[in-house]
């Protein structure tokens, strides 16, 4: 498979130079990179100078879920074979992508989720985070009947067929669970692959707080009510 037909969608909101490092690490691998700037108040292009990437910009801030959907739709229109969702804050590793997309190429899965609980980085997860993620995975299980080892990992890969069947409607952070709803509803084959999560001060700052987890739960309940 041509690497240029593997699209990496990166939602971006008021990032710093870590964004450039993230993009560079992917760029060297030869993937096509789609940046979705979710209405940042600061100019994000300055971190992307001299890098050939697709730059999309929401006029207003809609949320990470909406950005992923925009990037995914754009990738489909541009003729992607595989779409990878990747975080901008440097917590994912470009080296995990070949492992992540292997099951898609061999048709063993339609969608692959990265899991920090399967790999070596398991022991590096902060304690509070571990508890919240464990609660979250059982909540997802209650809602969908699918029990993943990692509930809210931003690293995932989809085939075009999977990307076409699902439309992320949860604009904010509940999209990770919403994708599971789609997996269940459309009977997609899924697989979990161990991935590395690099916790830095920056990624922790950018990551989710307990309060946001409650917001996700709230969004999920409303999603069930109104969809």
């Amino acid at each position, binding site marked *: 498979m041509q690497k240029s037909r593997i699209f990496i969608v990166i939602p971006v909101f008021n990032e710093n130079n870590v964004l450039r490092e993230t993009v560079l690490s992917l760029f060297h691998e030869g993937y096509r990179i789609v940046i979705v700037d979710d209405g940042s108040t600061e100019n994000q292009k300055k971190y992307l100078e001299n890098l050939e990437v697709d*730059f999309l910009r929401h006029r207003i801030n809609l949320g990470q879920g909406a950005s992923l959907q925009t990037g995914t739709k754009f990738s489909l229109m541009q003729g992607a074979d595989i779409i990878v969702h990747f975080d901008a804050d440097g917590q994912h590793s470009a080296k995990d992508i070949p492992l992540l997309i292997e099951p898609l190429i061999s048709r063993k899965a339609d969608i692959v989720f990265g899991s920090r609980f399967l790999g070596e980085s398991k022991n590096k997860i902060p304690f509070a985070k571990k508890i919240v993620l464990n609660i979250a995975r059982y909540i997802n299980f209650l809602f969908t009947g699918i029990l993943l080892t990692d509930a809210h990992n931003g690293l995932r890969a989809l085939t075009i067929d999977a990307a076409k069947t699902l439309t992320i409607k949860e604009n904010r952070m509940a999209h990770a669970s919403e994708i599971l709803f789609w997996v269940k509803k459309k009977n997609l084959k899924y697989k979990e692959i161990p991935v590395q999560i690099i916790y830095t001060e920056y990624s922790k700052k950018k990551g989710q707080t307990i309060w946001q987890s409650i917001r996700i739960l709230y969004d999920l309940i409303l999603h069930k009510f109104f969809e």
Partner: protein
Amino acid sequence: MTPIQFILLSGLLFTALYFYVRFRNRVADVLLLLVFFATATVFILFPDWSNIVAHKLGVGRGADLVFYLCIVLFVFVVLKLYSRIRKLEQLLTELIREKTIEEAEKQD
């Protein structure tokens, strides 16, 4: 007429007029409002009647009955508004998404 009756009635009249001016072309809405305002007026002028209804329904006081009904109505309105907001949000997202993809640029 007690002062509270006067306050409630004038408030009701004002609201009724406002809605009538805005929705006079929608017969069903106007009819519904008419029924609502008529009921309210009757209970303001004859507060004891609400007690009679309340007793029949197993509620101690008329004022309590009105309060309970208001809670149900309130929840209904909130849910209704919320689903409307969600629809609007999805519409807005779609619009922004289309615009975004239209304006997508290749950077180098």
